[in-house]
């Protein structure tokens, strides 16, 4: 049983116009086996929350705390956070030219598990993860995210989620740019990872359609850098009907 505890998190970015405050005191607790959906309009700070937890250098933490099972996440380097059990499925996964998917996956698995996976079982493991996500085996010889379609990038992210077995995963708009079939396949992957590893999920999304496949236990409405309303799955239905207008009004 793991718990990611976010308390009073305040985050800024430095731009040409100076320091801009994006997160203004976020409180959120995610435990193993739970699925939390964070929903909100564009520009509300949802992605900043995701990248801040993962440790992207662009963001400056100006207040609050993030702990994973009591350990101070904010003091960890990016790779230490991943090894502690956090995972971020990115909205825009980065191309790494000249590095093959198979080499990348094995390097990441070696880092996360603390030892190189046995080659024989590893090959089977990757094959299985790929076929479950409907991916061509030739995929593993391609360079990481290079020339991938939007759907391929997202499948590749979820394949990593299944192989690296984190404790808590943050999915940043994993549904964006996916057609209905791809959305179903990717969502099934998340559900599998959840069932296999009692994963805690923080699902960041703009739309409710992914929630048909990945049922949330809690829904949080995000606006202007903080959580403005919380509830159960029924809150998503309300958002579907009414939109975000009441949260972003003047």
């Amino acid at each position, binding site marked *: 049983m793991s718990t990611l505890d976010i308390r009073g998190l305040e985050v800024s970015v430095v731009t040409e116009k100076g320091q801009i405050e994006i997160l203004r005191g976020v409180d959120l607790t995610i435990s193993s086996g739970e699925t939390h959906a964070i929903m909100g309009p564009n520009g509300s700070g949802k992605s900043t929350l995701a990248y801040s937890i*993962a*440790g*992207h*250098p662009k963001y400056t933490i100006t207040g609050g705390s993030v702990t994973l099972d009591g350990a101070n996440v904010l003091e960890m*380097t*990016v*790779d230490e*956070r*991943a*090894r502690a059990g956090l*995972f*971020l499925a*990115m909205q825009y*996964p*980065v*191309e*790494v*030219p*000249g*590095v093959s998917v198979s*080499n*990348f996956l094995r*390097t*990441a698995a070696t*880092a*996360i598990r603390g030892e190189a996976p046995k080659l024989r079982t590893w090959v089977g493991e990757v094959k299985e993860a790929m076929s479950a996500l409907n991916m061509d085996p030739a995929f593993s010889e391609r*360079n*990481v995210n290079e020339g991938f379609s939007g759907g391929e990038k997202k499948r590749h992210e979820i394949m*990593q989620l299944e192989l*690296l077995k984190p404790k808590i995963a943050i999915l940043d708009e994993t549904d964006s740019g996916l057609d209905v079939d791809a959305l179903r396949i990717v969502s099934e992957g998340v559900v599998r990872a959840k069932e296999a590893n009692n994963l805690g999920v923080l699902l960041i999304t703009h739309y409710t359609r992914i929630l048909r496949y990945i049922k949330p236990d809690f829904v949080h409405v995000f606006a202007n850098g903080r959580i403005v309303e919380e509830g159960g799955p029924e809150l998503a239905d309300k958002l579907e009907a009414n939109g975000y207008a009441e949260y972003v009004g003047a």
Partner: protein
Amino acid sequence: MSLLATNYLTPSGREEAWRFTPLNRLGGLHDGSVDISDAESMTGPETAQAGVKISRVSRELLAPESQSDDVIVSRAQAECATVFHVEISPGIEVERAIHLRRVIERSGESELSRVRITVGENSRAVVIVENSGNLVLGEDIEIVLAPHSFLKFVTLQEWDAPAIYAARHHAIIDRDATFESVTVTVGGSLVRILPTVEFVASGASAELLGVYFAKEGQHFEHRIHVDHAVPKAKSRVNYKGALSGDKAHTVWIGDVLIRAAAEGTDTYELNRNLLLSDGARADSVPNLEIETGEIVGAGHASTTGRFDDEQLFYLMSRGVPMHEARRLVVRGFFSEIISRIGDEIIQERLMVGIDGELAKAGQ
């Protein structure tokens, strides 16, 4: 021992061709003050192959096929008593790569060298020149491709730390012939190579690939010159370099000339540099001169930058430590070119060397 003739214009360093080169580190190759030994270090493979003749012939039998305004190349052409000749018969597909290496009797000795590689009509071959050890070497390599021939020409500059190498690698490419070169420069104090191409008939094509990795104090210079003087020839240039350490200096010049007669030319050149530390300097000058508008395409690009933070973040967010992430990114950066060498042992040796340098740079 031979005394060098002195009737050459000694570069002052202000000339366009020499303005990046530290002349005082050329060991006297450029001004004739060098004391040339009678060393002939280039050596062919021990086992013979069908259709391949390797010999050293007197200069009278093999006059230069081309001229050069480079003073060191001119000296080599004028002074060398013999020419190392690799001759591939027409209509032959040479089975194994032909490896040429250096045998050095006295470390640090000075040498001028002429090499000729002749590829017969309809032949295919791979030649790999493995430069290592310590020499002060000025060299002219002329590569002559007959119609419909193919040559992959790999040169590895893995010289010892004090070595000096100033050379022209000049390809003369006839009708429908294909020249592929991979130039790797990772060792030596000063390396200055002129990879040059002369198209003599249409349908010829050249792909010039290169990688270099300059460490503290090393000067690695590659001055490409592709002369499109005939119609419908194709050229591609792609050089990638990394620099690490104080006063590591690389120079890449990409001169492509499309003459008025060269209608239907297709050319693109690219240079990318990765700066791994402060105090290193990469000069990159693409230069496209076009005298006809009737071409298929002509372009160039040049970038010099540091590690891409987003790439490192992506890898590290999967648990990969910083040093390992940097290693992956640099390996990936170079692998596009190094994988084209086509010799697993050499490729792995280069990659392991790059890993080692990176580990040192990270400290």
